[in-house]
């Protein structure tokens, strides 16, 4: 039994596996399969200040080895999160990461303020949602905007602050450095790649939003590359995600530079995927003489 514990921005996770924001709700839908305490943490569904309905359906399209979604941050608002979801999650013995997705800097600051007195372990600031017009990815594709919003939320919270980055940029390392300079304690990446599918019979985009975010195994090599680049460019920890489906994928992502990993789309294919990854990582470590899984982080030796 390897030591699976990892630390990200001062927060200890019992293992490196975290369901990603938007893919796992608040965990309730999976508790009949396994206790949430088997996971290292949970990144909760992205929360705006007042809640919103999101985009019209269809909001999902299948792609080769992946999927597009255009949910558009449907959520019940930060107060509902604090009153209705957090008390449940507090009892589950895993790290609770609140995902903050305001439309304006002011919204994000206010959400962070409301989270400040709560038991939330960590804030993940989403500056990369491709599916909302205001805010979302707009913050994540400019260094200056990314720095401003990060600095503002930084001032509003004493909680560990992780910023979730968009891959739809020319240089993700520049964005990562900007949010590091603005006081982020960690970065998480990658959010989804912007994509589109068309129903050739109706000649209509499958998604009512026309475009949506690509996730699933298809994007894994892009995610590994970006995590590797960012981990080599910043001094704060990186939480890696994007197409992880197996324990081997998770190990590859950690070797690229991730201190912990998030899983999203893979859970739709297999609801047990996160716990299988925890077990598989442990077995792999045992078989390969790795005593502490944290030692895998950034252990790739480039040519």
């Amino acid at each position, binding site marked *: 039994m390897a030591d699976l514990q990892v630390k990200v921005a001062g927060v200890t996770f019992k293992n490196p596996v975290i369901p990603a924001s938007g893919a796992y709700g608040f965990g*309730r*839908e999976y508790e009949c*399969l396994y206790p949430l305490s088997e996971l290292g943490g949970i990144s909760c569904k992205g929360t705006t200040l007042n809640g919103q*309905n999101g985009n*019209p359906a269809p909001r*999902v399209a299948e792609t*080769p080895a992946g999927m597009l979604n255009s949910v558009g941050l449907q959520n019940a608002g930060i107060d509902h999160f604090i009153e209705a979801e957090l008390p449940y999650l507090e009892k589950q013995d895993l790290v609770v990461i609140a995902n903050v997705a305001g439309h304006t800097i002011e919204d994000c600051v206010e959400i962070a303020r409301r989270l400040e007195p709560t038991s939330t372990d960590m804030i993940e600031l989403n500056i990369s949602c491709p599916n909302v017009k205001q805010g979302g990815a707009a913050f994540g594709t400019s260094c200056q905007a990314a720095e401003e919003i990060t600095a503002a939320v930084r001032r509003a919270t004493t909680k560990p602050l992780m910023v979730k980055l968009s891959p739809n940029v020319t240089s993700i390392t520049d964005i990562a450095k900007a949010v590091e300079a603005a006081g982020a304690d960690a970065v998480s990446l990658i959010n989804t790649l912007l994509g589109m599918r068309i129903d050739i019979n109706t000649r209509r985009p499958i998604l009512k939003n026309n475009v949506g975010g690509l996730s699933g195994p298809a994007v894994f090599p892009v995610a590994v590359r970006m995590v590797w680049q960012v981990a080599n460019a910043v001094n704060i920890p990186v939480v890696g995600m994007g197409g992880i489906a197996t324990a081997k994928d998770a190990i590859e992502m950690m070797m690229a530079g991730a201190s912990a990993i998030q899983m999203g789309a893979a859970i739709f*294919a*297999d*609801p047990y995927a996160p716990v299988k990854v925890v077990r598989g990582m442990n077995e792999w470590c045992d078989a390969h003489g790795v005593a502490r899984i944290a030692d895998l982080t950034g252990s790739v030796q480039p040519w």
Partner: protein
Amino acid sequence: MSYVQGEYPLIAKKNLAKNIYDFTIRAHHLAALAEPGQFVHLRVPGFFLRRPISICEIDREAGTIRLVFEIRGEGTEALSRINPGELVDVMGPLGKGFTLLPEGKKAIMVGGGIGVPPMLGVASHYGENAKAIVGFRNAAAVILTDDFKRVGTSCILCTDDGSAGMHGFVTEALKQELEREQPDLICACGPAPMLKGVIALADQYGVPCEVSLEERMGCGVGACLVCACRTVKDGKEYLAHVCKDGPVFDAHDVIL
């Protein structure tokens, strides 16, 4: 919320009509949990997303569920190629089924096309106290009419072209039935225009009505929120989710 996920054997397979397949899967625990109107979420090798398929019949004693589905794309085409003896990766039962009224209450089941299969499981709850009104494009597309009779439910068959049963839509047959006698509940599944017609008639005759909806789906359990459908909640429009809040909704709550 209680469901299971695992690989279960396909024990029987039939081709009921062009592109319509009939699977019987042995999954004791799943069958024990399932209720008519719920669905299962199937993984098809080579495809990333699961496919939601409504449950047609549940045999708790035999520990089996019956699924009748249509080939609509490459995923369901691949699903149809699975053979008896092979395993199918099934998640379920999922979602909310139809209300099952106490013994003696009467219900009408209305099904259109591939919306007919889920009505069979509900009909078997009511037996002879139910009446099924089922519609298909033409005689070649007709399925399951004998099965309704088997569970004791009389069945009015309609076809768009009149090549079998009544010539016309199920709504016309429903109107005639409602004129004659009003049941305690109408249950419906089918294309949106049909559901709209059914709901209008239910309103007109003051009969409670439940409809089963479909939408492109992700997780199947209410976590990913992709399968949104427009509903009314406390007088305000609310995007509910077919997989968890449905697939069966009270007719008054849905905006079609």
